[in-house]
């Protein structure tokens, strides 16, 4: 091919392109015909390899100018694919593809929210077994064998003896994790634990023999009840909004002294005018039990209670979940009714 032939080929291609444009050919076809590896312009440009350097320069620039104009056209041309291929009589109100969407259980979602709130305050997770030893569940937590405080927690026992000769039991609270953690690590500690606990109680709308607890404790130097109050307040504000308030009242748990019940201002009252069924119009919900870790507990963990101080707290996660999701019957949490789970 000589220079002249090459130029006439180029002008032929130019008129081909003009025709394609006037015929409103699809841009993808134009691209394929001219610019793809085997496209006519690509082949023509490849022919330049046999020309002299000067000719290469001259013809190459002409060819590339043309290529540019095609590309410009292609990028500017409206997407005629959608115009021509998709008919306009589709019923766009038909539902979209039903992608599957699972969910996490409300208890898990609540637990996760609690964990994230507490982790912002520097608390790390630990876990403990559900089948527990009397020592960890009671004795080391300052429930001596013949103490009436044991009656506060109806316990399920197993017919197997642990290494200390007591019956194994299903943990009645998450507090054994305090002992297990303190015995295996050294302060400063800031730990939470969540999980199932068991009490031998008949099931009704507000009781269950299986439920979930949050446990938290801090063991360090110079920890006071003010630190506990600050921690509780920060946690509650993260859970229920910055308008939520807390207040302390005396309470009793054998493993803390002084003990406190933490009441949270009812944030649900505003949506129930006059009579609030959530707090029974008292304005407060008792949600957390807390206190300063009892010196006997520290002693059981090998800590000197004059050196180390700390606080502990616990709460029913199911109760939080019921409040947050507006569930009124605790049994519903364990039915796994898909109609309920899919709504959440």
């Amino acid at each position, binding site marked *: 091919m000589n220079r002249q032939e090459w130029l006439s080929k180029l002008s032929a291609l130019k008129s081909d392109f003009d025709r394609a444009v006037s015929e409103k050919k699809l841009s993808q076809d134009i691209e394929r015909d001219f610019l793809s590896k085997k496209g006519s312009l690509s082949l023509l440009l490849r022919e330049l390899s046999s020309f002299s350097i000067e000719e290469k320069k001259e013809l190459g620039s002409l060819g590339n100018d043309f290529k540019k104009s095609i590309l410009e056209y292609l990028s500017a041309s409206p997407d005629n694919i959608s115009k021509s291929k998709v008919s306009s009589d589709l019923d766009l109100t038909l*539902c979209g593809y039903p992608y599957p969407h699972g969910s996490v259980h409300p208890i898990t979602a609540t637990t996760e929210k609690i964990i994230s709130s507490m982790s912002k305050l520097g608390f790390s997770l630990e876990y403990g077994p559900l089948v527990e030893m009397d020592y960890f569940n009671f004795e080391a937590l300052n429930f001596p064998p013949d103490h009436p405080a044991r009656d506060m927690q109806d316990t399920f*026992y197993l017919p197997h003896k642990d290494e200390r000769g007591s019956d194994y039991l299903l943990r009645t609270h998450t507090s054994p994790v305090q002992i297990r953690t303190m015995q295996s690590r050294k302060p400063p500690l800031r730990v939470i634990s969540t999980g199932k606990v068991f009490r031998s109680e008949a099931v009704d709308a507000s009781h269950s023999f299986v439920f979930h607890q949050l446990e938290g404790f801090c063991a360090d130097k110079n920890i006071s009840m003010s630190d506990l109050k600050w*921690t509780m307040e920060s946690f509650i504000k993260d859970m229920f909004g910055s308008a939520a308030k807390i207040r302390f009242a005396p309470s*009793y748990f054998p493993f803390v002294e002084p003990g406190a*019940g933490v009441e949270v201002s009812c944030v649900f009252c505003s949506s129930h005018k006059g009579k609030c069924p959530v707090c029974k119009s008292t304005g407060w919900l008792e949600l957390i039990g807390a206190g300063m870790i009892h010196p006997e507990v520290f002693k059981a963990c090998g800590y000197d209670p004059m050196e180390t*101080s700390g606080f502990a707290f616990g709460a029913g996660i199911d109760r939080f979940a019921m409040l947050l999701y507006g569930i009124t019957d605790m049994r519903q949490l*364990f039915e796994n009714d*898909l109609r309920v789970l899919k709504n959440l």
Partner: protein
Amino acid sequence: MKTIYSWLKKFSADLPAFEKLRVDLASLGFSIDNIQKIGFEGENVFVGEILKIEKHPNADRLSLCEVSTGAKIHKVVCGAKNIAVGQKIPFAVVGAKLPEGVLKKAKIRGIESEGMICSAGELGLYGYDDSGILVLDNSLTPGTDIREIFDKPDYIFELEITPNLGYCLSHYALARELSIFKGYKLEELSFKVAQSKGEKEISIEIENPSDCFRYLGLIVKNIKNKKTPMWMAERLRKIGINPKDDILIDASNYVMFELGQPTHCFDLRNIEGKKIIVRRAQDKEKIKTLDGEERALSKDILVIADEKKPIAVAGVMGGFYSSISQDTSDVLIESAHFNPSAVRHSSKFLNLKSDSSFRFERNVDSEIQDKAAYRIAELIMENNPDAFISQIQDERPSIFKRDPIEVKCDKINSILGSNFSNEDIEKSLKAISEKYVGAMFYPPSYRSDLKTIWDIAEEVARFWGYSNIKSETSMRVMPSKDHPYHQALSFIREKLCSIGMYEAINYDLISLKEVKAISFNEKMAVELKNPLSSDFHYLRPSLLCGLLKNLKYNLNRGVDSIMIYENGKVFALENGKILEKASTAGLMFGKTREYYWHAPEDFLDFYHLKGAVSYLFKDIANFSFKPVNEPLKHFQKGLCLEISVSGKHCGYLGAISGETLAAYDIKESEVYAFEFNTEVFLRYFEKDFYVRIKKSSPVSQYQHSVRDLSVVVLKKYSWEEIKKEITGIRDLLWVKLIDVYTGKNISPDSKSLTMRFMFSSMEKTFTDKELNSKIEEIYNKLNKVFGASLRS
């Protein structure tokens, strides 16, 4: 403890109104429940008689009544439907004080009403029918003030008393607590009892001083009138105690709720040998207790015995034969202080709880025994002018002494995070105990709970109010760390939710029937010693128990598709040891998706299950599926695979067997499930983030090439075998099976497989020729190894 407001007021006349008292009690750590308001509070309400009823001229639903209050006839407008001529009703005259305010003269629809016929609610009376006016007993005389008919206003409420407040288990003690902490005046206890005649009829002997710190016996003789006074019976009834109409029993109970000291009365005639011995029971000794039950005792049960036999289980319950009877006239009143754990032990051993054991377990005041005995004597003798006290014997082998506590104000403030002054602290502690000398605080005799500076700190906080504790912190900054188990569970949940599975949470306790249904060796199941019921008798050996139950529950509610999973613990007994393992299980049944107009229905099958498991394990571990020859009973033979991680068993997936489905009463088939030990995921997340994450591998700059190949092979060859053979081919990026065909044009023992190959090189783009030769190489290999032929 059921508490009566007016009874408290007897000990502290200036107690505030109930609503304020309630706040006081809560601020001291007592929670209140079941508040019951009784009685009438108001003035100028009289018994009236309805003489005449007419229709109100201007209102359909109202009536005009004439009511007589004896001296006067009143014309009133009434809206109630249950009125009738001749009825006796409570009638409030104009100016009457009612709970809701003072009644004024009013014109109702143009007619003046000279008073009001009242309902129970309008009078503030609870426990009556409040649907209309309150109809009174017809024998009442018009004009009678209704305050003569109804109780004075009062409240009965349930007080929750935690074990640390065990010293408040009586009305007196509660009034004392309020007086100390809130400053109300407390009446001193005083009794009108005659002196003892000083006889020495009964001897008291305490065998072991550590079992019984004090035993006081008081003998009252010549009791003739044993009737319980009305007021006492009424009070007992209000706190839920059934009066026995025998002053000896009722006064003993009454004093327990008044002063907190349990007591017991023995008929003097039934104490053999004139001896009371506090001792441990002998082996094989028996006692018939007051409830009529014959109980075998053991060596560590503390009893009260006479010369021959036990006559009471100390602190728990009296004996049947030594108890008082109708003709008892001489009694020994026992008022003792037993060791709390001895009483608790007996109560547990005999499975016998009483109001008495409840109080002894929580420890009683070591200084109240004499007061309680005197009080009973006083109550008995009130209506028995001829009765007298013949003997009082107070055995105290050792006077109960509490160690003083050294009060360090700094320590108290450092526990509470407060800055109470020394004076504030002293003020609060002096309110609790007069004996606060120097820095030494001597707890009062009833406060056995006060032992350390921490206990003192709580008292200071209770005294000044927990609201004085500030919310502020100087805690150090500490980074929090995530836990691998938590990360593992989050990862699993995220993945399974993303493919449309819903999380379930089930009870960990199941029935024996379920244990058997889940193919578990029954002997390996972990049993409870004291289950609530047979439905919740065992710890679950598999999470599938719960998921199958959930399937059944949802099928019953018309669900046609279910994809659920659970994370939890499973339990087994191995060599006598209880194993607790973290497990994850999932279950699938029914349609793959909700109805969709654009595509036909599709049903979940084994490959959906396998896909889910593969998706979960993909980046976590080097896993593979292995055939299972003898699957667990709950999986169907031939439709079950083992999940193996680095050659170790990890779990199963498969179709649930018909037998197991039948055990759950599920008629549907094609239920698929997996369950595996979550440990593998835990191991993965134990590794540091930068270690466990997948590293990026370079991708080719050259074009990839795709080629398909269809071959026919004998059915016996599995895809896994064939794939293994192909995998080694150079430059093959991946091979995927895109179609499996059997049927027309294929011999019955064979199948046609269509495979898609992706070739890629880091160096170049393959030519057609090169690609063809690669496909040929593959074909030749398949032909040689499996006798594959090209599909024509």
